[in-house]
């Protein structure tokens, strides 16, 4: 480790067993081998094991802050536990300078019958503070946690928010050289969250190193210069935070599109005697089916169906939903008498809808179609089936809202 590096992770790996039974059995085996002085070669996978963390390497310099993002189960918390030394690594190496402090679960070891003050001493000591240190910071801790007079009350009388605030307050006053924060700023109310964020920023300013794990990408953006994207225990991306977030959002959107299509049914509930829907989806300029479009591309959706009986006049409707099922677009072919689809003879048809400027922001959307008789208003399809697609980022845009606008900003001084 050279001068400026405070934390160095080299080819770090950790494995777990899939089933509890096997985990216990291997535990037994490892202990036995340890007892006779032949420690196990932990670098190989045995039957029923998998890498929860696989060959992770990076380093952290003094004053740097690093974000770690990834879906649930990607190995974030395992990585944190390895860095703090709670779990020993199976392969690779962790080296660091100074004291590492981790905010993994706030209030570790709290005793419900002890008062807030007593718990500060207990928890502070568990986190590695000396009695003198706690004495010195006691008022600050109580202040920050906004506990006030309740500090003399047992913590089982605290609201869950108070308990978390107290735990968090103790932890941030620990002043380690390297602070690891796991998903913690999602606790407390808004004002406390903001205060915590300020504390984190302050911490970073003092040139201590910070590792920050969160699902809240905005917080990662604010706090971290560099970010790692973990995927199934491996580093999928490492680089400056903006690029990492774009990478993460894009890949997670891709996954969501695939997943959505897996769970939504492909077949319309329709009136097969009259109309049978064959397919629907999104097309590109060359009439090929795709599942992503660019911000400036036209949105071309299509539906293919087979008409079994003559229909005098029909309406095709198109709906586009955001991921949280809000209706963004709902249009019908006969709106404002745009198109009249009439005198339909039996046969196969493809209906296209072309939206030149879709104005959709980066994100995942779903579409569905409906077909009805324009005269009787009888519906031939029920809009149960959906298909997802993605509006791609060009590499700069993050998912911020549904509507994509081209805006200008202007600032003017109005006086004192």
């Amino acid at each position, binding site marked *: 480790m050279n001068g400026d590096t405070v934390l160095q992770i080299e080819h770090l790996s950790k494995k777990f067993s899939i089933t509890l039974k096997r985990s216990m059995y291997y535990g037994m085996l490892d202990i036995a081998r340890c007892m006779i002085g032949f420690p196990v070669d932990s670098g190989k996978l045995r039957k029923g094991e998998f890498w929860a963390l696989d060959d992770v390497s990076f380093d952290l310099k003094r004053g740097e802050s690093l974000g770690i993002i990834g879906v649930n189960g990607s190995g974030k918390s395992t990585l944190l536990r390895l860095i703090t030394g709670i779990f020993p*690594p199976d392969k690779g190496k962790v080296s*660091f300078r100074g004291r590492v402090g981790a905010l993994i679960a706030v209030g570790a070891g709290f005793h419900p019958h002890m008062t807030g003050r007593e718990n500060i001493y*207990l928890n502070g000591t568990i986190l590695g503070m000396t009695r003198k240190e706690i004495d010195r910071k006691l008022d600050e801790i109580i202040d920050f946690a906004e506990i006030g007079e309740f500090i003399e009350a047992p913590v089982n009388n605290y609201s869950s928010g108070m308990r978390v605030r107290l735990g968090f307050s103790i932890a941030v006053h620990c002043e380690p050289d390297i602070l690891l924060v796991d998903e913690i700023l999602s606790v407390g109310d808004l004002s406390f969250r903001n205060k915590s964020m300020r504390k984190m920023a302050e911490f970073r300013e003092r040139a201590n190193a910070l590792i920050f794990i969160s699902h809240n990408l905005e917080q990662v953006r604010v706090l971290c210069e560099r970010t790692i994207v973990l995927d199934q225990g491996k580093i999928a991306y490492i680089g400056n935070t903006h690029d990492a977030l774009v990478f993460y959002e894009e890949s997670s959107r891709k996954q969501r599109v695939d997943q959505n299509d897996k769970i939504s049914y492909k077949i319309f509930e329709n009136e097969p005697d009259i109309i049978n829907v064959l397919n629907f989806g999104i097309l590109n300029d060359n009439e090929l089916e795709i599942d992503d479009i660019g911000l400036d591309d036209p949105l071309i959706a299509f539906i293919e169906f087979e008409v079994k009986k003559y229909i005098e006049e029909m309406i095709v409707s198109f709906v586009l939903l955001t991921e949280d099922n809000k209706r963004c677009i709902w249009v019908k072919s006969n709106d404002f008498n745009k198109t009249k689809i009439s005198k339909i003879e039996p046969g196969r048809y493809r209906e296209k809808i072309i939206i030149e400027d879709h104005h959709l922001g980066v994100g995942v959307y779903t579409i569905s179609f409906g077909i009805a008789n324009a005269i009787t208003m009888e519906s031939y399809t029920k809009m149960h089936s959906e298909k997802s697609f993605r509006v791609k980022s060009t590499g700069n845009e993050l998912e911020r809202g549904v509507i994509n606008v081209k805006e200008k900003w202007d600032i003017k001084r109005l006086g004192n």
Partner: protein
Amino acid sequence: MNSPEITVYEPNYRAKIGFFKIWMVMLRNIIRSRELIWQLFKRDFLMSYKKSFLGMAWIVISPVVGIVSWIFMNFTGVLNPGDVGIPYPAYVLLSSSVWGLFMGFYTAGEGTLAAGAGIITQVQFPHEALLIKQTAHQLANFILGFVLNIIILIAFGVIPSWKIVFFPLVTIPLFLLGAGIGLVVSVIGVVAMDLSKGMTIVLGLVMYITPVIYSNRVDNPFLKTVITYNPLTYLVGNVRDLIIYGRFDTIEMFLYSTLFAIGVFLVSWRFFYLSEDKVVDKMI
């Protein structure tokens, strides 16, 4: 950097510490964790009686009830302990309280990892500290009961010998043996609860082949042999005899037993340190 000390975690990094240095490291860890030990002791000992009306009285209630049953058996003639020189109730009271101390040390060791459930997987700290905290907990329980026992002893007309001042010294081997066995059970117990359950039964049986509720002048030749080679005969018996009669016989056997206890403890403590990191990730 204000603290330039570099820490390294590698696979089996504990095994790479020198053979003798490993004990030094553990000792140093314990000394550094004094405050932690005190805080955890306070939490677990003082708080454990907060939600009870009788409070700390429970510490003496259970041994007293146990002793009453021995006395009852003696009174009805079911149990013939041999001549012990003092009233039998006083004998069994003291004897079983020394045995209780041994069991307390065992329980302390056995509960070492379990005592840290909830924090071991959240915070990194030397788990050796938990052994000391557990032991302190057991000692605190013991002392309250022991003081009461001495008072009862005096009520029976048995004045303890002044040599009782050596009590802390002569119980050290009991700690080493009890905690030693306990530490091994503690680690293996994480992956196989069977051992802790089995061991409790086994130690219950061991009491019957140790002169605790009877004197060591037994007639049965088989039992006599077992007693002779049972280190606990000396580790428990000598302590009891020191208090009751002020004598410390079979010093040689006591020393051998002590050496045995030291050996057991050093080996199992080392085992604990080397193998606990194979099981911590199974404590979640």
